[in-house]
């Protein structure tokens, strides 16, 4: 199938820095194409299209290895990842049986915290979502003034507190979350969501993170984030249809869904079709 330029001409993650072992060849799938990648004998990252053996453009940035099947624009900047005071790590890659667009939308949603992440990111009866701001800047979506009461916002923090969230959607399949660092509340921890769309209804999620928290071990931070993703997968694998419906009215939104509505509207304006549900 012919994939539209806004989706084809992009950088997509295939692995995070901590994953590939030099000399080993890895197989994966991107936009329906079989890909092979790895680190060669000089520890340089490479990727090839397996059917044509064509070498593909690659990039190493944001603790992640990126591949493109087209002509991608410049990679978006994340100044926080240059901050030496932060510890950068990533979870294991996670396969989700849903369109990558559904995964991004779930990432932007806070109303599910007291139900799906009960005891950590949310808790009954604190279910109300206060109104927040959604803005478009430089063709990216920013969600600000988003605040939620969390009983256990991070691995090392005992006791609940109000956590401020800022979301930034840089590309249709890439988003960032800046959340209040419990130990240094005036600064923000960073969680990245880089989605690799394998097919229209299946994807792999790579999540590098940059934490200011130095009281927990890397392993504890990784496991905390992985348990959160694990809870989300139970939902994401059970959304029908798997692809994201863009037509307003097909699924019902309320005030708390302003970020999801803005995301769908933004995708629609860009002409994104890959991974979207077209109502027959």
């Amino acid at each position, binding site marked *: 199938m012919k994939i539209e330029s806004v989706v084809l001409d992009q950088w997509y993650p295939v692995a995070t820095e901590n994953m590939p072992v030099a000399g080993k060849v890895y197989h994966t799938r991107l936009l329906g194409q079989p890909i092979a990648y790895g680190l060669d004998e000089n520890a340089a990252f490479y990727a090839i299209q397996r059917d044509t053996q064509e070498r593909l453009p690659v990039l190493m940035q944001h603790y992640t290895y990126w591949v493109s099947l087209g002509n991608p624009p410049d990679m978006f900047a994340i100044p926080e990842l240059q901050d030496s005071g932060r510890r950068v790590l990533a979870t294991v890659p996670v396969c989700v049986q849903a369109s990558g667009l559904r995964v991004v939308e779930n990432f932007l949603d806070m109303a599910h915290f007291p*139900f799906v992440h009960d005891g950590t990111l949310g808790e009954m*009866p604190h*279910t109300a979502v206060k109104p927040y701001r959604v803005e478009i800047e430089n063709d990216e979506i920013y969600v600000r003034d988003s605040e939620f009461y969390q009983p256990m916002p991070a691995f090392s923090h005992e006791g609940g507190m109000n956590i401020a969230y800022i979301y930034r959607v840089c590309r249709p399949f890439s988003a960032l979350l800046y959340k209040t660092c419990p130990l240094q509340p005036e600064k923000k921890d960073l969680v990245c969501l880089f989605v690799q769309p394998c097919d229209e209804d299946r994807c792999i999620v790579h999540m590098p993170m940059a934490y200011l928290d130095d009281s927990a071990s890397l392993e504890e931070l990784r496991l905390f984030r992985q348990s959160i993703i694990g809870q989300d997968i139970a939902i994401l694998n059970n959304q029908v*249809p798997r692809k994201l419906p863009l037509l307003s009215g097909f699924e019902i939104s309320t005030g708390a869904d*302003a970020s999801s509505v803005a995301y769908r509207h933004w995708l629609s304006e860009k002409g994104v079709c890959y991974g979207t549900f077209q109502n027959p």
Partner: protein
Amino acid sequence: MFEDKWFPVARADELVLRHVFHTQLHGVELALWRTDKGEVNAWENRCPHRGMRLTLGINTGKSLKCQYHGWQFHSGDGQCSVIPSVPDGSMPHSACAKNFSVAEKNGFVWVNLARDYLSEPSTLTHAFALPSSVLRSITVNAPLSLVQAQLLNFCQYDRHADKQTFQAQHDGLMVHVCWQEYMLQTIDVLFMLQPAHTEKTVIHAMCNQSDDELKWTRRINQALTSLKLEMEADREIREEEPVIAPQPVQALPRWLPARVVERKEIAEQVASFRLHLPSFNRFKGIEAGAHIDVRTSQGLVRQFSLVEWDTKAQELLIGVKLESESRGGSAALYNEVKEDSVLEISAPKNHFRLVPGKGGTLIAGGIGVAPIVAMASQLEHEKLPYHLHYFVRNIYSRAFVDQLNKLDSVSFYQAMQPDQVAGQLKTILAKVSPEQPNVYICGPKGLLDTALRVIQENGWSHIQVRHELFSNRITHQDEHTFKVTLAKSGQSYIIPSGVSITDALREYGVQIETSCEQGVCGTCYTKVLSGKINHKDVYLSEEEKQSGDCMMPCVSRSASGDLVLDI
């Protein structure tokens, strides 16, 4: 899209207490569940919010709760009754699970995808007599036509079935086989076929040997398992995408004729109407707070809460107050409708509901007592804690006193000035605890606004207010009223203060499609030809708002003067 036909989708005994059963018909995934009272529901297995499978939700005994955001959908019409992220109780009317007609008969649950839950299963007929013993069901990953053909050779899979006397016949969805067995009379086995998807069929087996069901279940099970394994051995089993079903045909028309059985003056300028509605007994799950739409002779549509109802007698009771500033609706009903008149009414709707399992503080003003007294009645019946506070102008304006006198926990407040009302509300709301945080209000807008203000001023964030506000109870304030003209018809309509454009137009019979009704989703997007717009939505971009040629009529209004809409 689907044929108007009933299919078996589950054995009745599979719908156990508080369970949600997953099945599929023609590719449409279904969530089947039973309320504690025994009512069966067959809904599309997809939460209308973000598509989460409802079969992974929780059956609370009267509703299904989705695991993703905790939305709860009530039995019967599938209307959403709880949205936890929005605690003020405002509910988009479109928030409703897609429901299909369902019937329980002969030990099975039957579904017709072409009709909604109000359909009567009169079209349920069978080609063969149904044997009495329901045995088991088994899924085969093969198309129905192949499964049916294979079942005609059932004697190959059951080594005790006598091949000499074996007979088989079918009618498409049912395969009937029989044979003689030594020392027993004829064994009759019926296989009912459920087309779950194009390459998936469920076989439901029944037989006439009711004396030893366990033995026959095991025997048929063994034979069917061999059949299944043989059929699936050479097939590549593909995972098929679920089909999204179109909205089924509504069984009942929008307007139903109801005869006025009794009209009584029950308070100053308030008349009660007892209506008889044939087919009322088909409505499942009507709860306190429900209302009906009534269409007047001039075509105006007004909402009236059900004070009481009796589905067996097919009667319901509403109250109409003659509003001094009526735009014609209440006057027409109060003055013109007599006993034996026939009114056009809608099916009852449950947009204003009690939160299940909890008590509440109930506050009513004037005729707003109608849904509130129904709620108090229900809470008292369920032995949940409540208190009803009724604000009236004077003792002659108290409505539904007969019903109120049957309740244990009622307080009346009359002839209070606005600041006294505020003070009294403060006393009432100060007693609302976090364990029983629900407050239900129905009355004039001033009462609701005062209550919300008192809550906000005192920082009582634990209080969860649910309110019902019918536009015909709002007083007009001319400085905020404006006119809307629809370009295509040239008709103009007054939009009163406090009523959204879409709600006001709906009263006049002009439908603009809405979804969230909060200015978020974009469904009601309407082009504007002239007039200055006061944008209150979050959907349109800055450029779109500046251009002034479009708006979201579910929340936005006129900034000054009249608006002309391009519809």
